[in-house]
């Protein structure tokens, strides 16, 4: 990190065929109050199969924007993204959606849940194929929400809703999991359940990128990045 001599800036690492996520020199600006602000400024990172990568840094440093670009959710101004060897921004919107549906598991930072669907159905919308509700119910049990499958999100606590978001991101067994603050609002026991699920995904061969304000060692991170003012630093 800029202030720590043990860190170095990372704008891209050598491309590897095996990388599930491979980003190079990503740049993204937003117009804020009529002024263009470069929120992500020449950033690169990669995530390998079976690897859990933690991305830390202060609020507003560009972590979520970077993750959105990595997940095919936000087109970068420049730079390249490859997910499982495919550039999500070089294909049509529908194919990009299909790519997300098949290989990316998104765990969003805000409570983006459908208020008219119960917990199991909210999870199951991330699943493609038959029997989604059954798979969702099983996953809910694994993250401590047994018996809550029929509950509407509006009647659940913030911690329970957070775990719903985690379950939805994992329900289709994605190759690449992008989790933005998956343990926010959770007590220690619930947070550990979520981390266990993320680690289990890694053990199953998935690559996981986690944005968090928690200590990286809590997640058993294989690599740790830190963002500050739109630039990425890798902790050595």
């Amino acid at each position: 990190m800029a202030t720590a001599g043990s860190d170095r800036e990372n704008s891209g690492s050598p491309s590897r065929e095996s990388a599930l996520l491979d980003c190079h020199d990503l740049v993204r600006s937003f117009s804020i109050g009529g002024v263009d602000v470069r929120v992500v400024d020449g950033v690169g990172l990669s995530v390998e199969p079976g690897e859990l990568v933690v991305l830390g840094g202060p609020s507003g440093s560009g972590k979520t924007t970077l993750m959105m670009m990595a997940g095919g959710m936000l087109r970068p101004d420049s730079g390249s993204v490859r997910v499982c060897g495919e550039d999500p921004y070089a294909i049509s919107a529908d194919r990009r959606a299909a790519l997300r549906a098949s290989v990316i598991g998104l765990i969003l930072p805000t409570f983006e849940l459908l208020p008219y669907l119960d917990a199991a159905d909210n999870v199951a919308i991330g699943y493609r194929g038959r029997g989604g509700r059954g798979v969702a119910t099983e996953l809910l049990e694994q993250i401590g929400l047994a018996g809550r499958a029929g509950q509407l999100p509006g009647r659940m606590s913030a911690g329970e809703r957070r775990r719903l978001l985690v379950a939805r991101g994992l329900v289709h067994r994605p190759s690449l999991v992008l989790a933005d603050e998956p343990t926010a609002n959770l007590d220690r026991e619930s947070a550990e359940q979520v981390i266990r699920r993320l680690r289990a995904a890694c053990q199953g061969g998935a690559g996981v990128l986690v944005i968090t304000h928690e200590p990286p060692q809590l997640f058993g991170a294989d690599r740790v990045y830190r963002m500050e003012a739109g630039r990425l630093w890798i902790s050595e």
Partner: protein
Amino acid sequence: MAGVVAVAVATVLLFLRIADLAADRTRIIQRDIGLNLRILPAEADLEAYWMKGYADGVIEEGLLQTVHEQDVANRLVPMLQRTVPWGEGEAILTGIGQELFARGEVLKPVFGGFEDQDDELTLGAIAAEKRGLVEGDRVSLLGHEFGIKRVLSRTGSVDDIRVYGSLVAVQRLLGMPGQLNEIRALECECGEEVEDPEAWVRSVLEPLLPGTQIIRQDRLADARRRQRILAERVATVAAPALVLLAALAVSGLAFINGRQRRAEIGLFVAVGMSAARIGAIITWRAAVLGVVGGIGGVWIGWGLVVMIGERLVGSGAGMAAGAGVHGSEILLGGLVGGVIAACGAWVPAIIAARTDPSTTLRGE
């Protein structure tokens, strides 16, 4: 959403039904103020006609068909009227035949309900009151037994002392088969461009109707005719405009609703749904709400017609509303509500589905 569709459909239905009822009422008003033309026997004394309320003399019933073939009036009503002794007093026995309509059309009759009264009579208010008669009573008239089918409310005219029956029954009672004393020609079809409809109709009919005279009660009928034409013109503009406004309101609301659901759509995109599938989900849901609202609106509109139609239009509205909701209205209300809501929702849904989900989720 469904609520707004219901209100829009109810408003349209209310307007259309009220307009329809108003048109019916206008026809009845025209009849009551003397209508357009009366074809009377040539020998009838008009002074006596206005004093007694009917014409002396007769015309052959066969002339009715001659007039009908000319298609000069939308409605023809054959009548036979005579003063007859009844108990200690007298009554005007009035036989009314089935209305004939121009060009084979089937219209709502303005003198309906008498043609099938072979064994029944309808009484004017004073004729009934004077004899203490009510509906369902049995009476004897000219040696024949009749049931009282209906007692009319007061009109303040000679009609209050009439006794109505079917033309056939009255011809039989009076021993005057095949004879009339009046043909009423209502709503003459002379077109707006004809400056003097009476002269025009006379020029058509007089050569064909020997032994008759044609009178027109007064100029008020003509004013009413022009007023009706004007009202119909306004209605032909106002009705589509109202329908268009309602459609715009519903589709606009569906559009706004679609935009408000951008975060939801963004979520669908984020979990990997295609734009087409998202469009189908949002549109389908809007369509279902539109159908529910449309059908609900038909019922609400009908309820409003029942509640305020009579007050707005006068007697007769309640009867028309009592005919109930038509199946075609339910079908059309549901179909139109669904299609308009779906069309309105589809555009913002597709736009949102094709936008970067990160942007959509932020609600931008």
